[in-house]
């Protein structure tokens, strides 16, 4: 009987162990509040003020990262499929490189794209991305649909937005 009790206790500990990940996820299941500032520092966005009605993508990147550059290029090629989606390019990278990145991909001309700096590291602290590229996709009711890590197929992003 005593052995059974010890076994059950170990099992419940194991069950708690798996809850840890879910707990972290619970913070971001509904779009959390964090602030980003636009490249030219004229606009500050608080995600709490983002209205419902459109899916939202947060693409955490580094302007110097080749995977991020490739993914950006592919996303822009599929931009018509994402025309009803709000896309936020978020970075903690170098400001000069960011400006060049912004100009090079003509991101200033895209109506539904905003490129910004995570100036308070609030995005980073909320999501703890292990590496770039990192992507958080929310649906039109601001519920988390997907977290993608690393370079991925754009079709997966398009599919996730449609969910």
């Amino acid at each position, binding site marked *: 009987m005593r052995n059974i009790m010890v076994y059950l206790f170990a*099992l419940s500990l194991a*069950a708690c*162990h798996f809850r*840890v*990940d879910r707990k972290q*996820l619970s913070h971001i299941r509904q779009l959390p509040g964090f602030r980003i500032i636009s490249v030219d520092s004229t606009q500050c966005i608080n995600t709490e003020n983002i209205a419902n009605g459109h899916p939202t993508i947060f693409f955490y990147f580094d302007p110097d990262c080749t995977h991020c550059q490739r993914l950006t290029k592919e996303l822009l090629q599929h931009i018509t499929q994402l025309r009803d989606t709000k896309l936020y390019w978020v970075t903690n990278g170098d400001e000069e490189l960011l400006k060049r990145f912004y100009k090079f991909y003509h991101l200033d001309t895209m109506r539904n794209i905003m490129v910004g700096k995570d100036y308070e590291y609030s995005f980073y602290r909320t999501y703890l991305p292990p590496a770039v590229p990192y992507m958080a996709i929310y649906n039109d009711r601001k519920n988390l*649909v997907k*977290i*993608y890590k690393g370079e991925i*197929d754009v079709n997966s992003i398009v599919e996730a937005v449609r969910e």
Partner: protein
Amino acid sequence: MNQRSTILTLFPGLHKNFPANYPEKGPSLFVQFIIKEKAYKMYGYFIPIVLAAQFILFKILYPFPDLLPESYNYIDTASQHLAANVWPVGYGKFLWLTHCVSHSDTFLIAIQYFSLEAALVYLFYTILYLYRPGHMARNILFVLLFVNPLFLYLSNCILPDAIFATLSIVFIVQFCWMFHRPAISQVVIQGLIIGLAFTISFAAIFFPLVSVSGILLLKRKPMTSSIGWITGTILIIFFSLYTIQKTKESTGSAQFSVLGSWQLANNALYMYGHAKVDTDRLPKETRILDRTTKQFFEDIPPVQRDLTSFAGAFFLIVPYSPLKVFMDRQYKEEAPKQFEAWGKVAPIYAAYGKALIRQNPGAFIKYFLGPNIKNYFLPPLEKFEIYNLNYNDVPTIVQDWFDYITPDIAVISATFQGRLFYPYRFIFLALNVYFWGCLTWFLFTGKLKQMRPDLRRALILGSCFLILHFGFNVTAAPVVLRSQVVPMILLPAFCLLLRHSKTVYA
């Protein structure tokens, strides 16, 4: 026409052995036996409870499935609706079917686990009904089949092994019934199983041979008994032709198995470092590949080319293997077109593998077959050694397929399974020694002849299956523990019957 007269019309030779109390209508004797027989009734209560409890506990500890790079290929087949891929497409279609019902990984794992256990229940009751083993043997068999973690871990993998084992078990059990009381349904089921199993794994290529040995043992109405064999062979031919056509459409060359060609070259390369290769006698199209191979053996330090790692599949797995390097140089393709790249080089690899083996048959036997025979009897743990190759996340294709929000996965311990299954290697060796030792003893003392005919035939058929399984695995495939699951079920079952059955002799 009732059950009794149908059977007797098909197999008139049965009149002598046919039980007088065979029911004209209603549940068969077998079903009545399961439900009513006092000594065996308890198992009917225990089995569902034990299986459900184990599955729930296991899924608490292992909430996510276990994967290999091969698994991504199956999911790719399923998600892209591919008609041909590196591995047979049958399991991919099975994944797609379950996906149509539910995207849940637990649902898929449950289907795999309970299908396998259902086949084992069928085997268990068949043994109990047909051969009446003693109390001790029954209980040992119960533990081996229903309290064995091997089946949980196997079913938790996104690999075709659990489904293939299910089909293999039903295939064997059908023969046990045929030897006892043949019926047309058994031969038809057999044929379908052969065809189905072949779409899931090319290892089923030897099933028609097992079927032929079964027909020869049956010695009754060869035409009727051959229906299964004929159906199975037709299905195999049909699926092979279909695969060849679809592979041609994707890769440009008509091939039956892209993986088979890679495997052949991989097998031959095991002896390359020890053999003299006459480049002039190699086919022209393989000479660039041969230069790449030479470069590999010259440039890669021995510590990085330990051929004993990766259980007979070293050159298929390591990214710097000459087969991978040659493919990348010739057909630098991105991942979605991986099959095309694999397929384009496959004819060259098949020709290269054959030429190398023809030039050095002795070295091939010594450096590939020899170690593979050792691997057969002491199978490497491979998939069972570590969970998800010790990664704590999954690729996007898996994340999307199972609708995971994040690619992160968790498990109680990635390494525990390695410790758990380590003794299985030695148990498998011991079972082989015991079974073949017993069989030889029975053969030479004449006891095999005195044995009940149906049990003797089942034993001979099981032995044929094991020998052909050995032949296929040693010569054509990497031998690992997960490919030994069916022998791991059959061997203890037969050992127990030989040792503990009350009705071994006629």
